């Protein structure tokens, strides 16, 4: 097992560990803006830990879909994490066309979640499922379009090469393009991760909720899996945006250093630097999400598609900019 794979594995583990922190950051930002002290940063870790030791309760109507869905969702999300590059470092599984698989894995998550929600036979969860299905159906093509445009730009079809190793000069040459793609991603992040102008993650009983209402009946480890998978998904989106926004100086370094057998040698310091260089924007985006959540009110349901339309517009603009 080469060092590179070990490195990738390490970054996957790092992501897995750090992902729930994003929620804490967002909540802390919201609290600060609202002038409150707020929950601890590590609140989600505590929650997850507690839920893992709770006994699950299942509805009479539910079937094995209900039980399998959280695990399936988590498995798919973790696999998605495996094909996502960590900054300039190639992903654990990097192959041409993997960005398509990323979208497909999101679809798998959604598929299992929706079915689990419908499995309870509750009107509320059915409602949530319908909305989730609707918004994600509208969001999926936009995500795909943004990704394919990125691939077009890179001339390569693996995420690791598309967003992982953007050369700063190249980035600078196409700055408007990347900014627009990033905005499109950010606008997709909001509905896909149930953030405020679209959805409110804090309440459970509103008739207008989407994601939270879908998982009303889950409990114990199942709920923990779902929450965890959600935070991982948020992490993935943040990583995508940071990958698009932040060209890595390491990439230039890698390109310049002569390849010694099995690839260029990277110094340990560089790795740490690049890691920080990647993590910072990720948390920066979390801060941004927190700010948006604090400053905006939730949109009426029928206006949510407008957010998606906006995202689509940015993606199309980006495509046009690139094509021109």
């Amino acid at each position, binding site marked *: 097992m080469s060092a590179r794979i070990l490195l990738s594995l390490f970054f996957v583990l790092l992501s897995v560990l750090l992902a729930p922190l994003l929620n804490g950051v967002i909540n802390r930002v919201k609290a600060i803006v609202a002038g409150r002290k707020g929950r601890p940063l590590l609140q989600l870790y505590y929650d997850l830990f507690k839920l893992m030791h709770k*006994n*699950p*309760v*299942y*509805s*009479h*109507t539910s*079937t094995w*879909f209900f039980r399998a869905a*959280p*695990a399936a969702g*988590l*498995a798919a999300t973790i*696999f998605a994490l*495996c094909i996502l590059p960590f900054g300039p470092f190639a992903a654990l*599984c990097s*192959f*041409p*066309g*993997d960005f*398509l*698989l990323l*979208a*497909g894995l999101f*679809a798998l998550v959604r*598929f299992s979640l*929706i*079915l689990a*929600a*419908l499995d*309870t*036979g*509750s*009107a*509320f969860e*059915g*409602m949530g*499922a*319908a*909305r989730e*299905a*609707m918004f*994600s*159906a*509208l969001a*999926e*093509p936009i995500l*795909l*379009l943004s990704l*394919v*445009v990125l*691939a*077009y730009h890179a001339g390569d*079809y693996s995420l690791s090469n598309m967003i992982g190793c953007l050369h700063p000069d190249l980035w600078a040459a196409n700055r408007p393009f990347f900014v627009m793609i990033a905005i499109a991603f950010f606008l997709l992040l909001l509905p896909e991760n149930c953030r405020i102008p679209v959805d409110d993650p804090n309440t459970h009983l509103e008739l207008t909720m989407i994601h939270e209402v879908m998982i009303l009946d889950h409990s*114990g*480890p*199942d709920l923990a899996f779902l929450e965890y998978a959600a935070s991982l998904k948020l992490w993935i989106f943040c990583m995508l945006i940071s990958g698009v926004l932040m060209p890595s100086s390491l990439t230039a370094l890698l390109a310049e250093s002569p390849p010694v057998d099995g690839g260029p040698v990277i110094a340990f310091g560089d790795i740490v630097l690049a890691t920080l260089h990647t993590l910072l924007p990720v948390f920066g985006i979390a801060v941004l999400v927190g700010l948006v959540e604090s400053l905006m009110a939730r949109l009426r349901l029928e206006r949510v*598609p407008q957010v998606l339309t906006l995202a689509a517009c940015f993606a199309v603009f980006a495509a*046009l900019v690139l*094509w021109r």
Partner: protein
Amino acid sequence: MLILFATLVLLLGGAFASLFLRRGKWALYVPACALALAALAGIGFCAYALLQPSGLQASLPLPLPLGACLFSVDHISALFLIPVFLLSGLGGVLMPFRVRALEWASSGVPGVTVKGGDIQHGRHGFFYCILSAAMVLVLSASDAVFFLIAWEIMSLTPFFLISPQDKDSKERYAVWIYLVAAHLGALVLLLLFADMSVQADSTSFAVMESFARQSGWQGAGLLFVLALVGFGVKAGLAPLHMWMPEAHASAPGHVAVLLSGTMLNLGIYGIVRLLTLLAPDAFTALAPDRFWWSYLLMGIGAFSAVFGILLALAQSDMKRTLAYSSAENMGLICLALGAALLAGARGADKACVLLLAGAVLHMWNHSLFKSLLFLGANAVKESTHVTTIRHLGGLQKRIPLTGGCMALGCAAIAAVPPLNGFMSELLMYLGLAFGSEATRGTENPLIFWGLFFVVGSVAGLALFAFTRMFGLIFLGTPRSPESLEAKEPDRVLQSGMLLLAVLCLGVSLAAPWLFSLVEHSLRATLLSAAGTGTTDLSFAHELMYWYALAALVLLALFSLAWLVRRSASWKSGPGESPTWDCGYRYPSARMQYSGGSFSLSLALVLRPLLRPMLRIPAIRDLFPQRQHAVMSSPDWPSALWERLLFNPVSALAEWTKNLQSGLVNVYVLYIFIALVAALTWALGWS
């Protein structure tokens, strides 16, 4: 080639044996055996044909009135033949049991057949075999007249199969619209082949192809449009799909398998075959003045895909949902073909191969999962006698095996990894991406991106449609007594579904090998003109390997998570409780989200495309009466035909009836007028 003839003889023999036996179970078992044997032999034959370097040819000395009995099976035919054999064999094995179940259902008592039941076994078996044989003939015919005859036989026979019991006016309408569409489509093909055979002065496909190479067709564009319309009707491409929901919804399971699993493919086959006849190197060097062919294909494909899935997600009947989604999938295939044409013309070899392979594989996959879903729908219908979502629900607890297979099928059709549906769409996506890259500097990337977007939206909407269908029918609580008492179908149907489900999964596990198989046969036929081996497709193979691997990885991760969960909740075992009712004490099954409410919000968002019709009663009194809110989304693209074509013609015909007034004087007046007019014209004629 002898094997092919043997399968044909088997099928025909089964057909006539069945006709001869007329009634009783042997009238169904004999054709079932024949179909199964023919399927085995046929699949072997396909494998053999795919291994041959070039196509196989043969002819029969049957004095056909205009053409000749020429057979030719090249790799394209073989690729299309595989699902035909597979599904006709499967359907054939299922046939006796399905027919029996239908008869039991009509008697109302399980296990009891009404004396002199209303299905004529012999006739049913006969036409089933004939339909299979005709499909094989269509795929192997290499002569225009022979092809047309086989085509029309294939188009006509389902008419006898769609509604074996002939129960209600809905089924009758289905039969009618099916036959009308089939024949009108065939008439267009008649014009097409007549013109081609006049120009080439021969009805043989080989001669036509060489004619196209040497002198080229006059009005090739028109011919192409005719082919697209004629074959598009059969493939159920969106504005021409009006027969599909009716016929597929009415057909019993084993017939629907043939109709949607194989017959639609033949429409695609026709388009591909005609492309090779009209422009033999269409996929490698399409002339610039024929680029609009590809645009047209893409346009129709995109339209069909989008409207197919939109209409599918608004249906209240599960079989209709499935039927509309066939329009979607055929649209996707058509779109990929069009994109491949464009990519090939622009020199984007990789994209062309990927798109074509994606189209072929998607055709296979569609055959598999659509058959699976139709069989599942049939199982639901047999156990509950309804297929409307309104009356179903909670079936998973009652028929878990059917439910599991259906869930797999739904996941496959909704393009969820790691199943086969996503596998072929993956190739299409990648092909489109490559196409956009290879055509850098032209306006084509925009087209490819647009298609990419369309495919993406369709996939998203398919997820919506099929989670809705599956979730509302199989999950939750039963909405009616019928679904409360659902029972698993018989073993044969169960194993049929299981087989298809395993195949669905197996195809995605065997993705790399299947891809290279398809790639080789495409290179030998459609892409033969583009020097072989120039394009490096190792990346696509890599992707396919990864895709096959992804299934395993996902499984491993899932079991890991499952284990973690089990160990976490090990201590006292899970608790049981009713679904949380949000504080309302008497929740009932009727409060669940229904099909209409599920798709309402999306239908409203997509109002301009879907044109939903809402009828929400206003509540006025203090004590309102029982009211019904209805959402329906009429199929406006096919209603357009009715408005623009059928209604004016019948109005005109109504008016014309006045001319036959019954008065003999008027009749003689007609003669008078005709005489004077003809005489005048005769003098004026120079």
